[in-house]
C-alpha cells in the first residue's frame, strides 16, 4: 500500500513538473558580461517551445553597442516522454561603443498575441588592448588594424576615402570583412577590400611589422557636425607554427590556421558646412574641374536639331551633383539633357568626365545666341568657389525654303583674289577643235582603232584558214609522194647494213608507204605475208641470210610497184 502511494505521488509530481518542462519563454544571454571595449561578445535570444520565433530582431542598443555580425540562428529539438521540446536561438555579435556599465534592458516579444519578456542585465566594459591576440598588456599586439583618415575635417558634400591598415608580425593567409552599406551622416560610395595590397615594413616597439592597406572606405558627407567613424571588424586568418606534443604529431604539417577578429578603433571626423556666396550656378560640385563646350552645327534649318555638348572634366564628388540649369532663347525648344558619365573612384575621390548633351530645336528662322554656359564649383585646392563661363556660338536658323547659303561668308571675287585664290590664266592655244554636236562615239578618230582591230581579227582568221588548208593538203601531198618516198627509203637500205638494221629498214619502208597512202594491211595480200616474215625474224634477224633479206626487200618493192600500177 505504502509502495502504491509512493508511486502515485511520483506520478503527480511529474505531472506537475511537465508543464514547467514544456513552458514557453524567451531569454537573452551574453557570452561575457565583463569584457574590454574592443572585444566582441555574443548576445543570444533563446526561444523555448515557441513556434514562429522571429528570424531577425530590431532591438534598441541605445548607442552603447554596435552590431558587427549576425543574426546567426540555430534550432534544437528533443523528445521527453514522447513529447517534443524545441528551442531556437538568434545571436548577434556586438561591440561596446563606450566603457563603463551598460544596461541591457528587457525586450518584449508579441508572438501570436502572447507577450514574452527577457530579463534585463548589465554588462561591464573596461579599457583594454587593441587585439585579442595581444601578447602582453603593455606591449603592442602581434596584429592590429589602424584606421587612417585623410584629414580631420571635411566639407559637407565632399567625397573622401578612409584607409584601413593591417599591422602584423605574423603570417596572414586571408582577411575578410562584412560590407558596409550605410553610415550616419554620410553616403557610403564604396567599401573595398584590397585583394593584393602593397606592403611595407616598420619597426614598432622593437618588433617588425608588415603594414598593408587591406580596405578602403569612400564616403561623401551629407550632414554637418561631429561624427564617429565606428569600429570595423576584420576577420584575419593567421598561420601559426605548432609545437610538437608527441611523436605522433605530423612533423611536416605542424602548422594550423587561426582566425582572429580585429577591430579598428573608432575615430571622430568633423564635417563643416560650405562657405556662403556660392551663387546661382552652384549645384554642389566640390573638387577641381575644367569645362569644354561644343555645338555640332551653328547653321541649321527651322525645326532641325543642333546639339550643345558640355563636357566637365576633373575630380571630386562627380556623381553627387547635377549641371546648373541653362537658359536658352525663346523659340528654341530644349529637351532634358542626355547625361553620359565616364568617371571612376581613384585614390581619394572620383576622376573622369561627365557630359550633358542638350538638343536644341529652333522653331523660327533667325540668329540665336544662347547665354554663356556657367558652372560653379567649390575648389578644395583654393578653398573658394570658382565659376567657369564659356560662350556658345551663335546659331543661325534658315527658313525651310531657304537654302544653306552662308551669305555672310560668301566671298566676292575681290576677296578671293586677296586670299591668293584666283582663277588660272586662259589657254593660249587650241589643241583640238570639234563641232558643236561632237559625239565621241561617232568621232572617226575613235573609230579607226576599231577598224584596225577588225583587220587584226581578219588577219588572224585568214592565217588560221591558211594553216588549216596546209594541214589538209599535207595528206594529199604525202599520198602523192608515197612511192617516191618509199623508193628513196629503200635506196638507203642496202645489203651492207647489219641484218637487224636491214630488217628494220624494210619494215619502216613498207609501214611509211602504207601510212602515206592511208592503207591497211589488207590492201594487198602480199603485205600481210611480208609483215608476218618480218615479225617472225625480228627477234632473230641472224637466221636470215643476206640473200634472203635482199629477196624480202625486192618483194616489198614489187608489192609497192604493183599497188602503184608501175
Amino acid at each position, binding site marked *: 500500500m505504502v509502495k502504491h502511494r509512493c508511486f502515485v505521488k511520483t506520478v503527480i509530481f511529474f505531472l506537475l513538473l511537465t508543464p514547467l518542462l514544456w513552458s514557453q519563454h524567451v531569454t537573452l544571454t551574453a557570452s561575457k558580461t565583463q569584457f574590454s571595449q574592443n572585444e566582441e561578445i555574443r548576445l543570444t535570444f533563446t526561444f523555448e517551445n515557441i513556434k514562429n520565433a522571429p528570424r531577425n530582431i530590431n532591438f534598441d542598443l541605445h548607442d552603447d553597442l554596435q552590431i558587427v555580425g549576425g543574426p546567426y540562428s540555430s534550432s534544437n529539438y528533443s523528445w521527453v516522454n514522447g513529447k517534443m521540446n524545441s528551442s531556437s536561438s538568434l545571436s548577434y555579435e556586438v561591440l561596446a561603443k563606450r566603457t563603463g556599465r551598460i544596461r541591457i534592458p528587457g525586450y518584449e516579444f508579441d508572438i501570436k498575441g502572447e507577450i514574452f519578456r527577457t530579463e534585463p542585465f548589465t554588462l561591464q566594459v573596461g579599457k583594454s588592448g587593441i587585439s585579442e591576440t595581444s601578447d602582453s598588456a603593455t606591449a603592442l599586439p602581434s596584429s592590429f588594424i589602424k584606421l587612417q583618415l585623410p584629414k580631420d575635417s571635411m566639407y559637407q558634400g565632399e567625397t573622401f576615402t578612409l584607409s584601413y591598415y593591417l599591422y602584423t608580425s605574423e603570417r596572414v593567409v586571408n582577411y575578410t570583412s562584412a560590407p558596409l552599406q550605410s553610415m550616419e551622416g554620410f553616403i557610403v560610395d564604396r567599401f573595398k577590400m584590397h585583394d593584393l595590397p602593397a606592403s611595407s615594413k616598420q619597426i614598432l616597439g622593437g618588433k617588425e611589422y608588415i603594414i598593408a592597406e587591406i580596405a578602403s572606405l569612400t564616403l561623401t558627407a551629407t550632414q554637418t557636425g561631429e561624427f564617429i567613424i565606428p569600429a570595423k571588424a576584420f576577420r584575419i586568418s593567421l598561420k601559426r607554427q605548432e609545437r610538437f606534443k608527441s611523436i605522433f604529431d605530423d612533423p611536416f604539417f605542424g602548422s594550423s590556421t587561426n582566425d582572429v577578429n580585429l577591430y579598428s578603433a573608432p575615430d571622430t571626423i568633423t564635417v563643416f558646412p560650405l562657405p556662403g556666396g556660392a551663387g546661382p550656378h552652384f549645384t554642389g560640385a566640390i573638387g577641381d574641374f575644367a569645362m569644354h563646350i561644343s555645338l555640332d552645327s551653328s547653321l541649321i534649318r527651322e525645326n532641325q536639331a543642333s546639339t550643345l555638348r558640355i563636357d566637365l572634366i576633373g575630380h571630386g564628388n562627380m556623381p553627387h551633383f547635377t549641371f546648373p540649369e541653362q537658359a536658352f532663347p525663346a523659340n528654341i525648344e530644349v529637351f532634358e539633357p542626355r547625361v553620359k558619365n565616364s568617371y571612376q573612384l581613384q585614390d581619394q575621390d572620383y576622376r573622369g568626365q561627365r557630359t550633358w548633351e542638350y538638343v536644341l530645336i529652333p522653331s523660327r528662322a533667325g540668329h540665336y545666341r544662347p547665354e554663356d554656359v556657367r558652372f560653379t564649383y567649390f575648389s578644395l585646392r583654393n578653398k573658394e568657389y570658382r565659376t567657369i563661363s564659356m560662350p556658345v556660338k551663335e546659331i543661325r536658323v534658315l527658313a525651310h525654303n531657304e*537654302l544653306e547659303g552662308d551669305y555672310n561668308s560668301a566671298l566676292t571675287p575681290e576677296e578671293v583674289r586677296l586670299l591668293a585664290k584666283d582663277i588660272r590664266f586662259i589657254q593660249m592655244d587650241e589643241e583640238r577643235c570639234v563641232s558643236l554636236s561632237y559625239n565621241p562615239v561617232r568621232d572617226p578618230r575613235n573609230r579607226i582603232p576599231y577598224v584596225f582591230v577588225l583587220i*587584226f581579227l581578219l588577219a588572224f582568221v585568214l592565217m588560221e584558214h591558211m594553216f588549216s588548208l596546209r594541214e589538209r593538203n599535207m595528206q594529199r601531198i604525202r599520198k602523192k609522194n608515197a612511192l617516191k618516198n618509199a623508193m628513196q627509203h629503200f635506196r638507203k637500205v642496202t645489203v651492207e647494213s647489219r641484218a637487224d638494221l636491214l630488217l628494220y629498214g624494210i619494215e619502216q619502208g613498207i609501214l611509211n608507204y602504207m601510212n602515206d597512202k592511208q592503207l591497211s594491211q589488207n590492201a594487198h595480200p602480199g603485205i600481210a605475208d611480208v609483215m608476218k616474215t618480218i615479225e617472225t625474224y625480228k627477234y632473230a634477224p641472224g637466221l636470215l641470210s643476206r640473200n634472203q633479206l635482199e629477196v624480202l626487200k625486192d618483194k616489198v618493192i614489187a608489192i609497192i610497184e604493183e599497188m602503184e600500177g608501175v
Partner: protein
Amino acid sequence: MIKRILIIALLPLLILAKSDNPGRDPLFKQAVSAYAAEDYQSALAQFRDLAESGTVSWELYYNIGNSYYRLGETGPAIQYWEKAALLAPAHPDIRYNLNIVREQLIDKVVLPEMFPLFRWYGEMQKRLPLDRMIRLIAYLLAILVMVPALYRLKRHLRGHANRKPVMAIVIALSLMILLLTIVTADVLLERRNAKHAVILAESADIFSEPDRNATLLFTLHEGSKVRIGKEIEDKWAKISYFDDKIGWISTKYLGKIEE
C-alpha cells in the same frame, strides 16, 4: 619575224596616239591678246564669235569662262567652264577654276559622306575622258586579238608553244575590256541623257508648277548647277537640285551646259 609583225601592227596605233592640231584662225590669238591686255569685254566678244562659228574646243570654252569671271559674271563663267569640262573632264585648270568659284556660291549643300567605292566611281564618271577610253578599249581589243594570233603562229611555225601564259593574258585582258566597256557605256549614257544648266540670274525662284502664281518652293542663286528634266515651250523647265529639290523655273534664268 614576230617582232616585225608587232611593229607593223602597232604602227597605226602609234600614229593615232599622237593627236593632230589643225590650228585655229588668228581671231583666237587676237582674243588671247585682248584678254592679256585686260580688255575682257572685247576678248569675250571675240571668243564668243569663234564659238558661234560652229567649231569649238575646251580651250575656247575655258577662255570664255575666264572672261566672264573677270567681268564679274559668275553664272556664265561656271556655265562655260562646265562646257569645257565636258570636252576635257580631267583638265586641272578647269577643275581648279570651278573649285575657286564654287567657294563664292551662295547655295551650298553639304552631302553626307559616301562609301569610298561609290565616291571614287562618281569622281571617275565626272572626269573620265571618253575619247581616250574608247580608244583604250580598242587598243586592248587589238592586243586581245594579237596575243592568240601570235601563239597560233608560233605553234604552226615551231610546232610547239606554251599555252598557259597566253590563256592568262587573254582572261585578264577580257576582264579589263569588259569592265572598261561597262563603265564607259554608263558614263556615255549618263552624259547623253542628262542635261544640266547653271543659274545665271542673281537669284531665281523655283515654283511647284510652271506658273508664277504657284507655290514658291525655294530660291536658287547665281552659279548653282541644276539638272534639267522636262521643258515646256522653252519657257519653263523642270529642274532638280541635288536630287531632293525639284521644281519649275523660268528658262530665262538658265544657261544650258550641254548643247
